[in-house]
């Protein structure tokens, strides 16, 4: 059975502790975490503004974010690659085929997802609850942080979705990272590589490791999401 063989191979790979495998896992984590954190830093304020405030052009901004959520990663990869290529406007920075380039592309993927989902979550927090906080002396920033805390279930779901999108992405990281062994190879690009070589068992084993990482991360987020459930609205 090919699937059982894959599981055995995955366990063996991890137990062998091959430096290359651990390097791929570390790079996967580094790029995914960096771009998720960057996505939160950029996306949370955008999401709050779109979900909780009224400004001219808000509907257009929401439409653009919703569109950005659906842009194929490979298109984002192409745009980032062109921007960072030697002839591109940021070519002088020499970032192409680096982890930084991968993080930039992945951040462009995670940000609209996180922003869009946070906007929806924050929009469900009653305006009067924020007015209540304001009436007790909250500044606009404190009011925004309270709204994000109140919408915690949705905010964590947004972070999980952003992380999921970057950790499973292959097109963009392949284009801007180049799948260079020991440098920019991540689990998804390694799976593509091994499949191309006909090493399906190994590719599947890598897939299982990727799924385990994703499951662990989502398990943590879900635990955190529900850790204060007794304080949620019944």
């Amino acid at each position, binding site marked *: 059975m090919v699937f059982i063989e894959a599981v055995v191979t995955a366990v063996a790979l991890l137990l062998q502790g091959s430096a290359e495998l651990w390097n791929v896992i570390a790079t996967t984590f580094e790029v995914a975490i960096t771009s998720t954190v960057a996505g939160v830093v950029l996306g949370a304020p955008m999401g709050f503004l779109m979900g909780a405030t009224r400004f001219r052009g808000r509907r257009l901004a929401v439409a653009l974010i919703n569109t950005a959520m659906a842009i194929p990663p490979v298109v984002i990869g192409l745009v980032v690659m062109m921007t960072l290529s030697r002839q591109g406007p940021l070519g002088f920075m020499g970032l192409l085929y680096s982890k930084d380039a991968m993080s930039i592309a992945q951040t462009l993927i995670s940000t609209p997802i996180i922003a869009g989902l946070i906007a929806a979550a924050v929009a469900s927090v009653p305006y009067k609850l924020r*007015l209540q906080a304001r*009436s*007790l002396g909250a500044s606009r920033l404190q009011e925004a942080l*309270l709204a994000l805390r109140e919408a915690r279930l949705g905010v964590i779901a947004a972070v999980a979705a952003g992380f999921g999108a970057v950790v499973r992405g292959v097109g963009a990281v392949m284009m801007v990272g180049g799948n260079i062994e020991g440098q920019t190879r991540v689990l998804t690009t390694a799976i593509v590589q091994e499949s191309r070589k006909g090493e399906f068992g190994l590719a599947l084993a890598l897939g299982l490791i990727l799924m385990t990482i994703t499951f662990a991360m989502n398990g943590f987020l879900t635990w955190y999401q529900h850790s*204060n459930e007794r*304080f949620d609205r019944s």
Partner: protein
Amino acid sequence: MMNDTQAGMALRCTGIRKSYDKRTVVDVAELDIPAGETLAVLGPSGSGKSTLLSILGLLEPPDAGEVYLDGNRVTHRDKTARMHMAAAFQSPYLFKGTVADNVAYGLKLRRMLSVDRRSAVADSLERVGLGGWENRSALTLSGGEAQRVALARALVLRPRVLLLDEPLSSLDPLIKGQLAQDFARIIREHSMTTLYVTHDQNEAMAIADRMVILRDGVPVASGTVDEVTGLPPDAWTANFLGAESPMQGSVVSSADGLIGIDTGGCVVYAGGSEEIGSRLIVGVRPEDVLLFEGDADIPITTARNRFLGTVVDVELWGVMYHMVIDICGSRLASRVSRASVRDMGLETGSKVRVVFKASAVRYKRI
């Protein structure tokens, strides 16, 4: 920790206007709440009273007009001024967390030390009758409990201006009555300047010193609770308050602190002294008007005003009947219990004796 002895601050506004979608929701030329007084703002739904509270509480900016706190002009950007105020709304809007987390929220924003915070929270919960409730989940409380927490959360800040936006309207009558009394006691004890928005005149009468009635964002009546409810200035206000439009008449006698006012055939007696011939509007609260069967012997009473009238309207309002009586061409309202209506067989056209005291009659020169 904030000083316990801080008195209320005078709150005043002039020329306040606010519109939403080109519809004017608030248009108040002037409103004044002297330091330490409680002003009730009454009005039906959509009359702009909550918007007015948000503007006076510096929670939202008006389109035009100024707000003054102790004579100094303040705006919604003035955080120091906002720190002197606290509000509780119709829905308690408790935050996720414990009761203590909620009550401590404003104190944390004011960077109070946690040891002081704990004792302030405990003290505030004690005041609203929830001593020892600190560690309960705030979002599993009943409506009345949650509203007490919301009040404790505002009171713990020792605000100099307290803003209450229909804080009791979502509660059942039993809890409502109890909380109204508690609110009135707490407000008096703290000598805070209080703006109390409500559509319930009974709440307003229990809590406020003065009241303003808003219609479509514009004040149509203002004065002491007694003045406004006893002598509504126009038919709309009277109808809103469940009374009848005031009668009009001329003073025909004035002696020994008692005046007689001819309202068109009937002479109504009121306490006071006015020049003979003065034109007055005259009103009596429905609660002060007693009805007896038309042919009944009226028991010995000090009530100076006794008339024969005809029931012209009977409506059931909650537990009481609202009756409108015609006396000498003028209309008076009365509240009568279901049992009395049944026993007396009251219906439209019934002849009744109408009795009320001279001291219950309010009047104003026109």
